[in-house]
């Protein structure tokens, strides 16, 4: 009986393909050419960092059979450094470590920022005041100095997970502010009132209603966090206050290259630098594309 009923309804309905929210977002995103190209490049970089080490014969360590200071060639596409390290292998490891930090920071600081922002915006009153004063206070402390002071003091040098933790703990401020601003207007909407009237707990409303509806802000700020984390981590490692040798990071590779930008060892300086730029650049374009795609005010012309 009920089957027959739905079948009748289906027959009556105008036959258009169902469009979910996400399929619309995808369509809009894939129309953004720079963002799509960036996404492809970014995925290739991730594959390079995580799959590459299994395919390439050299790792990032020093080997006695590798000659020192060979320019880019077939045996060593990115050349070798003074100590006898294959730079392609080193680049894979360095990119992987920087990516590890960036991805963990993106997830960690986004979760902290989203929860803090949502709680502040939802409860208002003293909760809001306290949380936002904490944000103000953290904002006054210079990010680079406090992270450097903590990372530099870790016994035996910081590992990538130390770096990720430290950067995430101090990196959530902008996300919290953006989410709070969204939630402040959302909390007055009817569907939140309905959820309250239906007896939903505060936690339920925050996690099931408020945060999903601020997803566009959260996703965009998470992507931008990746670029931010890559730049911070490499800066700290460059200063010698982040990831330490014998492990390696893109910042360390540039530090080791020193003043070789214009001499015969130029490849040691440019390749890691271009890798950082490429990661941060593609992430920024992806973020831009996502912002446009997730913006509900954008109308999609139905064809």
């Amino acid at each position, binding site marked *: 009986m009920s089957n027959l009923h739905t079948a009748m309804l289906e027959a009556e309905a105008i036959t258009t393909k169902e469009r979910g929210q996400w399929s619309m977002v995808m369509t809009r995103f894939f129309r953004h050419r720079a963002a799509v190209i960036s996404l492809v490049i970014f995925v290739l970089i991730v594959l390079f960092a995580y799959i590459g080490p299994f395919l390439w014969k050299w790792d990032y360590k020093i080997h006695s059979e590798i000659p020192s200071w060979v320019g880019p060639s077939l045996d060593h596409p990115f050349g070798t450094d003074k100590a006898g390290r294959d730079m392609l292998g080193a680049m894979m490891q360095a990119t992987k470590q920087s990516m590890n930090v960036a991805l963990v920071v993106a997830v960690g600081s986004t979760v902290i920022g989203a929860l803090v922002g949502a709680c502040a915006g939802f409860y208002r009153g003293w909760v809001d005041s306290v949380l936002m*004063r*904490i944000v*103000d*206070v*953290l*904002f*006054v*402390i*210079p*990010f*680079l*100095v*406090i992270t*450097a*002071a*903590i990372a*530099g*003091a*870790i016994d035996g040098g910081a590992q990538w997970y130390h770096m990720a933790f430290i950067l995430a703990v101090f990196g959530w401020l902008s996300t919290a502010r953006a989410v709070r601003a969204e939630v402040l207007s959302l909390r007055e909407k009817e569907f939140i009132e309905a959820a309250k009237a239906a007896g939903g707990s505060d936690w339920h409303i925050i996690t099931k209603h408020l945060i999903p509806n601020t997803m566009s802000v959260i996703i965009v700020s998470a992507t931008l966090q990746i*670029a931010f984390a890559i*730049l911070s981590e*490499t*800066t700290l490692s*460059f*200063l*010698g*206050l982040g990831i330490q040798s014998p492990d390696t990071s893109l*910042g360390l590779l*540039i530090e080791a290259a*020193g*003043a070789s*930008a*214009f001499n015969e060892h130029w490849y040691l*300086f440019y390749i890691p*630098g271009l890798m*950082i*730029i*490429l*990661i*941060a*650049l593609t992430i*920024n*374009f992806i973020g831009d594309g996502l912002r446009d795609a997730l913006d509900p005010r954008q109308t999609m012309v139905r064809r």
Partner: protein
Amino acid sequence: MVVFIIRRTLLMIPVLLGATLLSFILVDLSNDPVAEQVFQIQQSTGEAVPQSTVDAIESQLYYDRSLPERYWLWLTGIGETNGDIGLLQGEWGPSIEGTAVDIGYEISTRFWITLRLVLFATVASIGIAILSGVVSAVKQYSRVDYSLTFVGFLFLAMPSFWLGSLLKEAAVQANKGLGSTVLQTYGSGTTGFQGTGWEVFVDSLPYLVVPTLVLTLAGYAAISRYQRASMLEVMNSDYVRLARAKGVRNGTVMRRHALRTALIPVATFAPLSLAGAMGGAIVTERIFGWRGLGAYSYDAILHGDSFAVMAYLLISGIVVLIGVLISDLLYGVLDPRIRYE
């Protein structure tokens, strides 16, 4: 206006206090200057350090007190002290480099070196940002707009230490090629140069060019994006359309109506880039061998010199808060809808 400034300044005090408390705890928990000192002595003498020396170091650095007491002493200097601690009394606390090194003296001599760099860079980056943002908006979706946007993205993605190393080497090459020393790439001024303030400033100019350029390029892109967006929004607003409709000349519309309003979001955002530049100073000073505040805090971090790190954190905190205050005031100057009573 004056009342407003005073009220805002008073409101900043608790924020600054909170920031010092939080960073004091973090720096204190993560660093152990006593252990660092003991290790140094052990390295130089090759013997185990006697307990009496450890105790002496502890009492000299106030590490025989509890953390809350140490913070209280650092802030006020009220209590049992050696007379070298207490911000309210103008003392910055003991340095681990020994009693001969006074943190307050180090900071006051180095402060102007860093401020010179940071101020020039911030002003220059705001100028470039406004220019490129406005040009981008006026020529929206043209080739100029696309190129400026791409260049902006490029500098946004470029790590400042990489750009700094690159420009430093480029300046060295340029000097070699020209056979001149127009661009100095190491230090902040001629060593041992003496003279009046103005002469010192003129002497430092060749040293200033490249580091300022690095900080400027590293900072301008984000502001320029804001400027473009806000300019576009204003240009599509009704009152700009009205001004055009009643026949106001294009230049006047842009200057008097569009640009003035479009500067408001930028004015609030731009002084905050002072914070970024203060952080960036550590990197730039390290690359260009400046002996400014950034280099000082870098050394302090390396040696676990807690009170020196705190001094830098406090000073950059104050600079950031001054930036926030300036941005609040600019709001009032630029936006006629806001009046400070």
